[in-house]
């Protein structure tokens, strides 16, 4: 057996499927005001934060679970979930990594995210979120020197209340849709980033999410603020243990870019997708929204979606500032019984705004893939342009690929162009690759990577390599 084959065999099964046996503190099961007060209390939150949560909960009570999405799922019993779960050792926060529970360190090492800084070859600052709490943030000192704030959001609520108060809920208000509102009420932890005026963040910032406890929903909240003229590149990765039941993950991510600022947000999502018969897996219902608030600002989303039983998310840009730019690059791969309904919204409000959407969908096995997107150019968004390209690739005749774009143009000086294609890998290409000595699986891997290249190029280097491998692995067994 050659090395490559060995590697593939190693990776073939979901390699992050282990769970860590660790003592947990959990909130009582169910969703009510007491649980919200419990979460707020255990995080030692100020009064205004609790009010924010309760206001969202009031709103949540009258909302109904949406049902317009393509992948249908059995009704979720929101009273049968734990809304807070944290390793016991985190109750009194460890002051440094040395005090951190060795079991936790071990877990992250297994995941390939060593938290000890010296173990890193290249400087990426990591915030690791384990179930409901952030367990460690690396490279803090170096960042602080530049005035950059990178810490768990629960910490930011305490130490930088003025920033959190000003921006939290300004892009995704408490009165938003069902899952976003649920998150506003019960969010537990996540990352907070503030880049001061004129600072170019010297390293990639990264959060690593891990769901461990069973029957737990993970509700993290990320808030990134790029002040005038600043730049930040942020990465997000996720995994979960293999379990037979479906687990809910409903996160909110808010990005705010002020004048001349740029935020680049990359995600490699590899939650547990369920087994080959579609049993188990994560429901990934995430709300991600960026606001280009200032002039000449830019927000760029890149996502590689390979995991989750159901992925249902639309990272969006609101282009409010004049000359602002929004970008969306996406690869979504579904195999076996996975389902995805993903895409983006580009809302043009300011003059001379630009947006670009590149979406690549690949479905294999019995899976179902939907691209759903909105491009809305308002009557005041003079001289705006949008370019959209969404391509789908089908492997086998049991899967589906769908495209549902909504295109609204209310401004005669603006241009919108949209293209979509659906096809399969052509016999000619396969034949050519095989003739050059590749076996069918390698050939498919090569062609798919070529198909995705436009998006993979957008990822930071370290991620790109990982993502490229992931693309190959996700499609294992779908050929032939």
């Amino acid at each position: 057996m050659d090395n490559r084959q060995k590697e593939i065999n190693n990776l073939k099964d979901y390699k992050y499927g282990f769970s860590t046996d660790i003592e947990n503190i959990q909130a009582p099961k169910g969703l009510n005001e007491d649980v919200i007060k419990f979460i707020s209390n255990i995080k030692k939150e100020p009064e205004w934060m609790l009010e924010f949560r309760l206001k969202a909960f009031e709103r949540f009570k009258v909302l109904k679970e949406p049902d317009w999405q393509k992948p249908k799922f059995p009704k979720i019993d929101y009273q049968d979930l734990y809304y807070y779960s944290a390793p016991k050792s985190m109750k009194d926060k460890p002051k440094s990594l040395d005090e951190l529970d060795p079991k936790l360190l071990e877990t992250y090492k297994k995941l390939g995210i060593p938290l000890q800084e010296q173990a890193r070859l290249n400087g990426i600052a990591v915030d690791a979120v384990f179930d409901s709490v952030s367990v460690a943030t690396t490279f803090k000192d170096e960042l602080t020197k530049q005035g950059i704030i990178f810490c768990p959001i629960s910490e930011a609520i305490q130490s930088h209340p003025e920033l959190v108060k000003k921006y939290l809920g300004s892009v995704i208000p408490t009165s938003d849709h069902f899952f976003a509102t649920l998150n506003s009420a019960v969010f537990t932890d996540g990352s907070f980033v503030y880049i001061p005026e004129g600072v170019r963040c010297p390293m990639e910032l990264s959060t690593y999410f891990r769901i461990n406890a069973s029957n737990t929903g993970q509700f993290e909240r990320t808030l990134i603020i790029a002040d005038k003229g600043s730049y930040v590149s942020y990465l997000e990765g996720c995994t979960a243990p293999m379990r037979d039941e479906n687990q809910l993950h409903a996160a909110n991510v808010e990005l705010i870019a002020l004048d001349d600022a740029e935020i680049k947000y990359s995600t490699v999502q590899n939650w547990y997708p369920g087994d080959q018969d579609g049993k188990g897996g994560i429901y990934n219902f995430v709300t991600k929204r960026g606001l280009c608030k200032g002039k000449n600002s830019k927000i760029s989303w890149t996502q590689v979606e390979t995991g989750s039983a159901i992925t249902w998310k639309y990272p969006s840009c609101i282009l409010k500032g004049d000359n602002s730019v929004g970008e969306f690059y996406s690869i979504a791969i579904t195999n076996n019984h996975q389902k995805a309904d993903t895409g983006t919204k580009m809302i043009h409000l300011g003059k001379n705004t630009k947006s670009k959407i590149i979406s690549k969908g690949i479905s294999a096995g019995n899976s179902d893939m939907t691209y759903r997107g909105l491009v809305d150019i308002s009557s005041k968004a003079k001289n705006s342009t949008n370019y959209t390209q969404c391509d789908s690739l089908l492997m086998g005749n049991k899967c589906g690929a769908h495209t549902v774009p909504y295109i609204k143009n209310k401004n005669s000086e603006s241009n919108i162009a949209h293209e979509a294609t659906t096809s399969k890998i052509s016999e000619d290409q396969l034949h050519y690759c095989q003739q050059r000595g590749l076996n069918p699986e390698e050939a498919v891997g090569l062609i798919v990577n070529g198909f995705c290249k436009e998006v993979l190029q957008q990822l930071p280097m370290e991620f790109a390599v990982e993502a490229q491998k992931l693309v190959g692995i996700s499609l294992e067994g779908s050929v032939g």
Partner: protein
Amino acid sequence: MKEQLQKDFYNSIKNLSLSQKDIEIKKFCLDNFIDKGFPNKKEEDWKFSDLNQIIKNNIGELSFYNDQASTNKVNTSVFVDGLEHNKIVFINGRIEKIDFEYEKKDQIEIIDQSETINEFENSNSLSDLNNAFTNKCFKILVKKSYQLAKPLIIYHTTNSKIWSKNINLRLNFELDRDSSLRLIDLFNDTSEKNFLNIFYNFELKENAVLKNYKVDKFENKNIKYSFNNIDQDKNSISETFILSSGSNFSKNEINCNLNGIYASAFVNGVFSLNNDKHHEIRSIINHLTENTKSYQLIKSVLEQSSKAVYQGKIFVNSDAQKTDGYQLSKAILINKESEFNAKPELEIYADDVKCSHGSASGSLNEDSIFYLMSRGLSYHQSRELLINGFLLDVVEKITDSEIKNLIKNMLGIKE
């Protein structure tokens, strides 16, 4: 509205000799409609055109009863000159004339189907309204291997006798093996503020060819909804062309089922709108078996505060391998207030297919205007030339040369 509907319904059926069972069925449809009301923007298919609101704003109170006892005089001046054709004339929703003077009488059969109701997949409350209130319905059967010598023009004429009325009409067509039919729907309205609700059902057998041209060109203040259901057997061809221009509001829906192999469907449309008109085309092409083909091209020129909507869906069933589906919509927005909305949709469950769509909207290309002006044309001439060229693309898709010329003349496009 409920009392009005019920009152008008009993007035309508009073004059008809219907069996108790038929009345029950019609009553059932009426109750369905009362339950659902006119479609509004909460329904996905009506997201961009809230018919309920449009009727409220443009018409206000509608009445549903039409006295169809007395005949209307057919005004021959509306007939198309210079093209020999067969005629069906509707005046205010009443069939006044059916005339197949150019055809062999034994090859075309006209069957009264007033007692049936239409049931379509994915239909809406308007189909219930139609079923409840249509009192006459004919089926036109073109017999095996008969190809009509001349086109059939259906004149939809309304005059000032009606006001704030809802008119429902329904026609069924069956094209037997190897037959062909060219059909033009021509709208001529001198009335205002009425709501026309038209349902056609086409059944195309093996090798049959249907060409349907819908021409709504003349300015009027009516609101129109038209639904075409087309079922196609092996090797059949359907071609639909829509010129959407005259009415205040108009929505054309095409639902096409490609049931037999090698069946193909073509849908082409032109929106040429001004003032505050609001038009929509919605097409659903269902590829249900292998080796079927569809092609759609929609172009719009939007002036003043007009609004055009195109919703097109290509559905490919898992059996429908080797499907070829194509869809393109393009719009030129002339004025600031004009608006173009599109929802081109693909839903695909088979892997060996070639499906694509494109959509583009924007302003007139300033560079092209500059180029033409530098060649000595005025701004106005350059603009006209560019718009004509843009629309000509769609008109050229019409495969029947006689009708192509007729439509070119109507649009004022010179070559």
